[in-house]
């Protein structure tokens, strides 16, 4: 899932100051699961902003509303009427959610309340770790299910740099070296051959905006464009 974390309250306050009526839109998807932008976080942020902006501004009103997912058009429909009286929107969705809101309500300023961090896993309650760079060219089959792009600080593809210390990354001694792990796992599986040959330069697939239209739907959207 997508992992995000709340911006500093001061920064959020700075973005929305001057707007009299703000709608804070939560997301029931990823940011809710990682405890950053669900129902509870919406309520907390509304309370905090009310307290700190009420003193500065004569008129300030903020209300919260959480949609099922900010990245789906049909879940945003219910907002169409609700947003009308508001001067600005605050989004507690990920970066994609913020943009989808802004796209749907182009006349409204939309501000992000979160910083979107990475594509990761829920290790335990309140503990998230990055696992995927969504590079579009997955090498996990070669590397024993450990991503050298996401887990190695240098994104190396041909084995570890010279720096692992006690099997940890030289950049952060709290982080295990991805390549030590890859080596150990492939060794245990008898698949070290995978990393003995030179892995050639990658053809990066993530250097332009990604769009995927499934084959079966191409006609449908081609017609829609016309």
């Amino acid at each position: 899932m997508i992992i995000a974390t709340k911006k500093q309250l001061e920064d959020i306050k700075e973005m929305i100051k001057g707007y009299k009526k703000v709608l804070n839109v939560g997301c029931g998807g990823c940011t809710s699961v990682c405890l950053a932008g669900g129902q509870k976080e919406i309520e907390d942020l509304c309370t905090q902003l009310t307290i700190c902006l009420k003193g500065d501004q004569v008129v300030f009103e903020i209300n919260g509303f959480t949609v099922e997912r900010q990245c789906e058009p049909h879940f945003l429909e219910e907002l169409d009427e609700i947003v009308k009286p508001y001067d600005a929107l605050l989004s507690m969705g990920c970066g994609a959610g913020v943009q989808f809101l802004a796209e749907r309500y182009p006349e409204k300023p939309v501000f992000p309340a979160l910083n979107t961090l990475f594509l990761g896993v829920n290790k335990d309650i309140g503990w998230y770790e990055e696992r995927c760079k969504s590079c579009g060219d997955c090498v996990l089959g070669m590397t024993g299910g450990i991503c050298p792009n996401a887990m190695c600080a240098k994104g190396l593809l041909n084995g570890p740099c010279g720096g692992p210390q006690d099997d940890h990354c030289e950049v952060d001694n709290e982080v295990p070296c991805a390549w030590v792990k890859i080596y150990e796992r492939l060794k245990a599986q008898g698949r070290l051959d995978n990393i003995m040959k030179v892995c050639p330069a990658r053809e990066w697939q993530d250097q332009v905006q990604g769009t995927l239209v499934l084959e079966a739907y191409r006609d449908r959207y081609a017609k829609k464009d016309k």
Partner: protein
Amino acid sequence: MKSESNLEKVLNQGIFAVTGELGPPRGADANIVREKAKHLKGRVDAVNVTDNQTAMVRMASWAASILLIQEGLEPNYQMVCRDRNRIAMQSDILGASALGIHTMLCLSGDHQKFGDHPKSKKVYDLDSIQLIDMVRKMRDESKFLSGQDITQAPKMFIGAAENPFGQPYEFRVHRLAKKVAAGTDFIQTQCIYNMERFREWIKQANDMGLTDKVYILAGITPMKSLRMALYMKNSVPGLDVPDWVIKRLEGVDKKKQADEGIAIACEQIEEFKEMKGVAGVHLMLIEWEHKVPEITERAKLLPRPTCQ
């Protein structure tokens, strides 16, 4: 000959090679490079010119390399993968070759977190092995990485680094093999202190036939003091400083520690001269360039050959 590299000539003739190192300044003063070069001239076969080492901004390695050529030294132009994509790298390699640089060293580079711009954006479009492969392709096939033709190929003698002390230990010689397969002509190792582990590593390289295909220069950094030795032992990633080094430095007066450090280095060099698979030494005297004359003299590495 693959290039016009002096280092290649020395190694091809079977002469025990000596390379040095020079860190470009954190400023635009060419005289700093020229002054450091004086200590190295005539005492080494090529001089590594570091590329923003430890991710600190310094004068471009190609520019400092040109200054060395002007001073009559051969630069070993270092290039790291951290700061440039394949377009910039290939462009710089063509430019370097055009300006008379014949030897280069392909490195991953220290992560920017260690430097003075820790929040800069890393590149790592290629890793060091892919960089070696690209330079070889440019030189031998006269092709860019894209497969398109180069009008005039850059004739580089290609080097790379390897750390026999990095983890996982048993993968290290295989990583060396990958660098050889990618096309490296010579290897300069990480600073060696743990001779026992190095002997094991070079034996593996000999047994795998790698040392028949690549010249290996053993990395030497003499300890200036006990303090430096303790710092290298405890705080520098990927270094292996055994206790005997610490004990020997502890055993002498503080004023004599630098001398003892050099004595240890000279003993190592004597062993490397006789060691099967070792083709020379790489002297990394970090901000201690003025000691190169003394060390090369004491280690009986002089005079350096003039190769045609």
